[in-house]
């Protein structure tokens, strides 16, 4: 594959696979956004979500502990241990809590790419201000 873009999604280069600790997360800067990127080494799975925990609006999810809940990958926010599914972003510990935005992740050799849907960046910005 030579071009890193498709009709709907823009893929940007996030980091090298070796930059991300096994079974943990890092924070990626993309323009003015912060994206949390997680690597599960046992299943060789990668997930990306917004870095902002919607509960108290803290930029902290990348520093949270990862794990599974009945097989579903999740992350726990370091602040109050709210847990979120990495598969679809919904809050697992409080059904009233807002969901996380999740992003697709793609690997090319040792390079990690995160996909942003066209138009989503603007939406994310607006949503943040509206809340």
């Amino acid at each position, binding site marked *: 594959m030579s071009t890193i873009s498709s009709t709907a999604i823009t893929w940007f280069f*996030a*980091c090298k696979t070796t*930059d*991300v*600790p*096994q*079974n*943990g997360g*890092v*924070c*990626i*800067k993309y323009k003015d956004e*912060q994206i949390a*990127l997680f690597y*599960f080494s*046992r*299943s060789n799975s990668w997930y990306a979500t917004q870095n902002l925990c*919607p509960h*108290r*609006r*803290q*930029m*902290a999810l990348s*520093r*949270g*502990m*990862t*794990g*599974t*809940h*009945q*097989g579903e*990958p*999740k992350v*726990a926010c*370091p*602040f109050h*241990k709210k*847990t979120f599914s990495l598969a679809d972003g919904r809050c697992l510990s409080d*059904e*009233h*809590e*807002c969901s996380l935005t999740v992003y697709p992740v793609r690997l090319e050799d040792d390079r990690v790419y995160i996909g942003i849907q066209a138009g989503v960046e603007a939406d994310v910005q607006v949503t943040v201000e509206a*809340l």
Partner: protein
Amino acid sequence: MKIVVIGNGMVGHKFCEKITQKLGTNTARIVIFGEETLPAYDRVHLSEYFAGKTAEDLSLAPASWYASQNITLHLGDPVHIIDRAQKTVTSLKGITESYDFLVMATGSAAFVPNIAGTDKKGVFIYRTIEDLELMKDYAPRATRGAVIGGGLLGLEAAKALLDLGITRTSVIEFAPRLMPRQIDDKGSFVLQSKLQSLGLEVLTGKNTSGILGEDTITGLQFSDGTALDADMLVISAGIKPRDELAAACGLETGPRGGIVVNDQLQTSDPSIYAVGECALYNGMIYGLVAPGYEMAEVAASHIIDAAASQKSFTGFDMSTKLKLIGVDVASFGNPFTAPDQSHSIVMEDSISGIYQRINISQDGKYLLGGILIGNADAYNMLLQTCKNNIVLPPNPADVLLGPRNGAASAGAGVDALPDDAVICSCESITKAAICQAVEAGNETLDAVKKCTKAGTCCGGCTPMVKDLITATMKAQGKYIRNVVCEHFDYSRQELLDLIKVKSLRSFDEALDHYGHGEGCEVCKPVISSILASLWNDMILAKGNDTAQDSNDRYLANIQKGGTYSVVPRIPGGEITPDKLIVIGTIAKEYNLYTKITGGQRIDMFGAHLGDLPAIWEALIEAGFESGHAYGKALRTVKSCVGSTWCRFGLHDSVSYAIRIEERYRGLRAPHKIKSAVSGCIRECAEAQSKDFGIIATEKGWNLYVCGNGGSKPQHALLLAQDLDSETCIRYIDRFLMFYIKTADPLTRTATWLNKLEGGIDYLRNVVVNDSLGIAESLEAEMQFLVDNYKCEWKEVVDSPELRKKFSHFINAPEEKDPTVKFETLREQKKAADWK
């Protein structure tokens, strides 16, 4: 269908929850108008606002919940016109909405008695978070508080004043006794003595005739000619239903207030309902949250389908249990039966301030009601026995006093309750509903709460829900094991033994050998703590960094806003002027907020993640080492100045504290460990509130263990006395290792001891008399950990690879988190508030 709700209090919110649940395939447009600017919050726990809870903690649902349910929420905008002919409402800001159904949940206002001068500065009412904020702002100027009203709300308000630091506070009640509606004469008397012993002045039979002072209150005048000095007054003499809007549009209201409703909560206009404290049902206003919730349920069912709704409101049990200024007060069923209708059994203990009365039917078979003051542990069981007409044991006094003369247990506990017993009265959840949820696989408290909503409101039924879970699982033949989480089918103690036997050194190895799945935020810190307690390896090595709790992962405490605080170790609280200057210089260089901690050290707040290695490099250069404030580990060994300076000191408590702190520094355990050494019996280091505390005696040291400050304070108990310094340390080695090896996760020593069969006597036998024959190995294990100690921050500072892990953006390592914001307070910075 379009529904307009007026009022966004607890009951108004509950109505929205109920109606959205019941809608099913129907659709409805719901619009709420609320007078307050905050979305619905928990008014029942309002006084906790002063005890540190924030408005967010008290909130019932975030604004986003309403959005997700498609509910339009207008806050800070009360409705001021209802046009019943056109079926519209218009708000103060001019928004007009039509309705098919209108629900009035306008609640109540504080009742302010007709006394001259209630408009003076320093006079407050106690009702909303805004009232509380006004009180909070004013309180620092006040030294002498007063509360008019000795009922439930009045005593809550008095608690609020005490929490605000006004230690001299008086409660003034018009009736000759406190809480005249809920409890009897004797109960009031016991409550009054108990409150007075806690420092609250109680004045009963006092009619306030005026408020003294020019513009600002200076005191109260009573009709008997006496007066009271006061510079802050809270009026909390009762409630007054908010019915003015209903009255203005011609709905029927009661002579003393309240919107008249029928069994379905409809007002005199069938398309308008009233629920909660504004509703007058059968001549009565229900001022508690549980009946309000029941009303919300009935009204919601009726609006969805009037024909199909079987539900009607038929009055409600007003049983209640509260903690007033730390004193349990409960009344249930009929607390005031007359002597010719029933027998009463009364237990009064004026030493401990306990009064308990139960009223029993004349045939001695049934419980009619009762009052519990000072100790209401039996409330849930008694209430259930009363409500479900359970036949009492042959000797009814057993239900209060427990079986005596070696008889077997009198009450059969939760097993005796019928299936339709309402366990959670706030949410009306029955025993059957809870047991069914457990049988369906919801085997934890959280799962049951989520599935049934039981215990999610006031939380009073939580112990009973736990008992029901255990009982149901036992009835299913399930062996109840205290396993760590879904990934490890072992208790912490079992895992520690297994990991030790196999010499496992990382979370991954432990998961491969004994777990399944990927682990989670529960088992990862447990295993990491076990590994550290066994081997004392560098916790970030061997890929264990991501298995640490996130504070341990970054060797610092995360604070509001996402920055960290830094606490170097200051053993025994002793520090040289030069080292103080170093801390000051570093704090200035990195713009850190500095504060002395409760453990006699200095905390520096507001450090960016990326600055931590450089800050520590400078600290280590000056001779500091990690203080482990971020870990479930030994924190501090506090000390008084001791015999080197103090004219009373018996031994050199500072030197001994430093020796102990340096011995156990970095020791990881199931929970944090605190200690202190006092140089004499005056106990200035407060050693008896610590996990282990040492007090000098004429002959040596007394060793106390398993004390705790925090939310459930507990005094430490004497383990051994008059020890020499070496023996004392050997006993501490044994005690700590025994705790580390046997405690459940996140269990402080106090809780561990409370659960330990045999208690302190058993512990003393193990530690002092070596009854298990393990003393030598416990000492050897501790010595291994002590010998293996290294400052983990020094290891990070010296390792370029580990230092790399301390940056916010992995793809922009030099950049700091741009969303971090600070504000200024008293010439230092503070974190910006939660949004």
